[in-house]
């Protein structure tokens, strides 16, 4: 698996797209910092970027890579290699190079700006960790979509739909159901609903840092327990890990049974 990872990674490191992605984040970081001159504001803007763009780019890139490397995959399949290693290797290659682009692209400008001297470093690290998780999750989801759909167009369609659903529609439905059932105690429901969407989950994780003052204003005992203690952080990170592991597990399950 490590060899496949290595070659996929090399392959991606040569491809234009990794650089585009990397340069995009680099530019974003510099623009945010040096036009604004305000670290805290930059971190808030970054949060929006991370929970919207990272999933989108990861999904598209993941699907694209999977389809484009079809022949490469077939070449590998004829080699004495375990199937799951081939796919996990490719997955880790893509997710790894995307994560690297994200962390380096955003990290560099912030380090140059003097992040280490600032107390925003924790918020920033949390952002990067969340971004890394989102990359891992959405590349895994994208691979799942691609492996289940031979048709490229369909695969892309589903991928974009998935992103749209998790990034926007889900929250719309969520909001509607909260307003519709406002007479009922809703805090367990809303926390649970958050857990079922990795984007919301990441957002909550960041809210814990940025908006804790507002979150603690709410009365519900479960909310209080969740946000007021380390429970929120622990539960969120555990669920994020689950969100990463489950699609990867399904990917390797599907990979073992797929015909090429």
């Amino acid at each position, binding site marked *: 698996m490590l060899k496949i990872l290595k070659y996929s990674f090399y392959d991606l490191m040569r491809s234009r797209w990794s650089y585009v992605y990397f340069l995009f984040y680099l530019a974003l970081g510099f623009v945010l910092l040096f036009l604004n001159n305000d670290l805290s504001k930059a971190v808030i803007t970054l949060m929006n970027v991370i929970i919207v763009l990272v999933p989108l780019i990861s999904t598209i890139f993941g699907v694209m890579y999977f389809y484009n490397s*079809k022949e490469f995959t077939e*070449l590998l399949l004829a080699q004495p290699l375990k199937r799951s290693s081939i796919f996990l290797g490719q997955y880790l290659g893509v997710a790894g190079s995307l994560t690297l682009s994200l962390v380096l692209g955003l990290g560099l400008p912030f380090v140059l700006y003097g992040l280490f001297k600032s107390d925003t470093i924790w918020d920033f690290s949390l952002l990067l960790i969340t971004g890394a998780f989102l990359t891992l999750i959405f590349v895994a989801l994208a691979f799942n979509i691609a492996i289940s759909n031979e048709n490229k167009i369909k695969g892309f369609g589903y991928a974009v739909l998935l992103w749209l659903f998790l990034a926007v529609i889900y929250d719309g439905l969520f909001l509607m159901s909260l307003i519709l059932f406002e007479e009922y105690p809703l805090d367990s429901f809303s926390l649970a609903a958050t857990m079922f969407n990795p984007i919301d989950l990441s957002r909550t994780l960041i809210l814990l840092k940025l908006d804790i003052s507002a979150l603690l204003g709410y009365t519900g005992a479960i909310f209080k327990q969740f946000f007021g203690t380390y429970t929120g952080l622990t539960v969120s990170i555990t669920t994020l890990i689950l969100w990463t592991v489950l699609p990867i597990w399904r990917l390797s399950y599907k990979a*073992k049974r797929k015909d090429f």
Partner: protein
Amino acid sequence: MIQIENLYKKFGKNQVLSNLDLDIHGSGIFAVLGPNGSGKTTLIKCILGMVVPSSGEIEIQGSTIKKNWRYRQEINYLPQIANFPGNLKVKELIRMIKDLRQKDSKEKDLIRLFDLDSFLDKKLSTLSGGTKQKVNIVLTFMFDSPLIILDEPTTGLDPGSLIKLKELLTQEKSKGKTILITTHIMQFVEEMSDEIVYLLEGNIFFKGNVEQLKTKTNQTDFEHAIAAIATRTSDA
């Protein structure tokens, strides 16, 4: 070498292989023939483990291939479409495959044989179809394995290279290897193959050498003989 029993494969509603039995033993060149959609590629992919059979048993060198991948160490495979990761250079691709298989290889002789030296530093995406196929051939023959499977090896080759490929095949056969080939070029089959496996609607319609086929179909010409099988089935 290869032993297949009761092999079934269904893609959706489409039954591609049904109750296929096949025994291939000893050295020689075995041509797998059949009309389009008869299941040639599927059969080969089943042997390679790329397609998971619906049911049935495939044994290579006496051991089942189910949930096994190490047996592929003993197979050299030439895929139908030679489409490689475009970002890699030829040299790197060869190095990568060598790295993956961890086996002795003789790529240098082959590169010389096919005049690929000048292409080694080129990216695969810039190569022509024929050159890609040559690279494909180098990758296939550079290892010393007892079983060689070639899916349409002649695609895109110029006559000179075709001759070299034939020489290569004869050479490998003389080393006692089992070689499985699918192709549409009947001349190539007639010239090279020791035995023909004719697939029809997911089953083996005929297995034997060229002479036997001619006798069976009462034809003197090989190409006609093949065509005769096809017409006879369409009559049936």
